[in-house]
């Protein structure tokens, strides 16, 4: 099971009392504004979660994995995500619980 926009809208409806249409629109707009900022070349910083940064990559040699044919990978701008300290810590805590449950099973 993965978290989707529908799950996020459902929670806004359940816990914040937004109506279903408002909740759905707000979730949609939340991701659209982030995409728009990145498209405009602007970094997005969501404190407590992480930063979406942009990196410009130079052209580099590549290969078609099916045919083996050499084709250059053109210069491009890519999005990278750097998780914030708070999120990293929470995920590390999950790692510890995960390791403990694996040991329990062994």
């Amino acid at each position, binding site marked *: 099971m993965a*978290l989707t926009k529908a799950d996020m809208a459902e929670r806004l409806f359940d816990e*914040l009392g*937004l109506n279903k249409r408002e909740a759905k629109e707000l979730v949609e707009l939340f991701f659209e504004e982030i*995409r728009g900022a990145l498209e405009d070349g602007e970094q997005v910083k969501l404190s407590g979660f992480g930063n979406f940064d942009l990196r410009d990559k130079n052209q580099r040699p590549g290969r078609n994995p099916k045919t083996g044919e050499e084709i250059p990978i053109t210069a491009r701008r890519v*999005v990278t995500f750097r998780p914030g300290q708070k*999120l990293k810590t929470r995920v590390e805590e999950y*790692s510890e619980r995960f390791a403990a449950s694996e040991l329990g099973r062994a």
Partner: protein
Amino acid sequence: MTKSELIEVLARKQSQLSYKDVETAVKAMIEHMSQSLSQGERIEIRGFGSFSLHFRPPRVGRNPKTGDAVTLPGKFVPHFKPGKELRERVNGLTADMTSREVEPA
């Protein structure tokens, strides 16, 4: 763009909602996403991207003060893979210029 700037833009665009409602909602969405990842659950947002955990195997590190070797346990770290629409938009491409690609739901 920061979280508070994002809240301001959304509040302007959703004028039927109060600033306070939008602020609470944005914080709730970010918390929902953090919670999912911290429970080992993936996030899949079509056209935006997916977040998942990558495993970093145990390694031998060093105590920077004493130089002693210490075994660091394996751990998960958050990972983001941008979706097709986001990749194309930051790269200034229109959809018809790029090759076909299948993206997870």
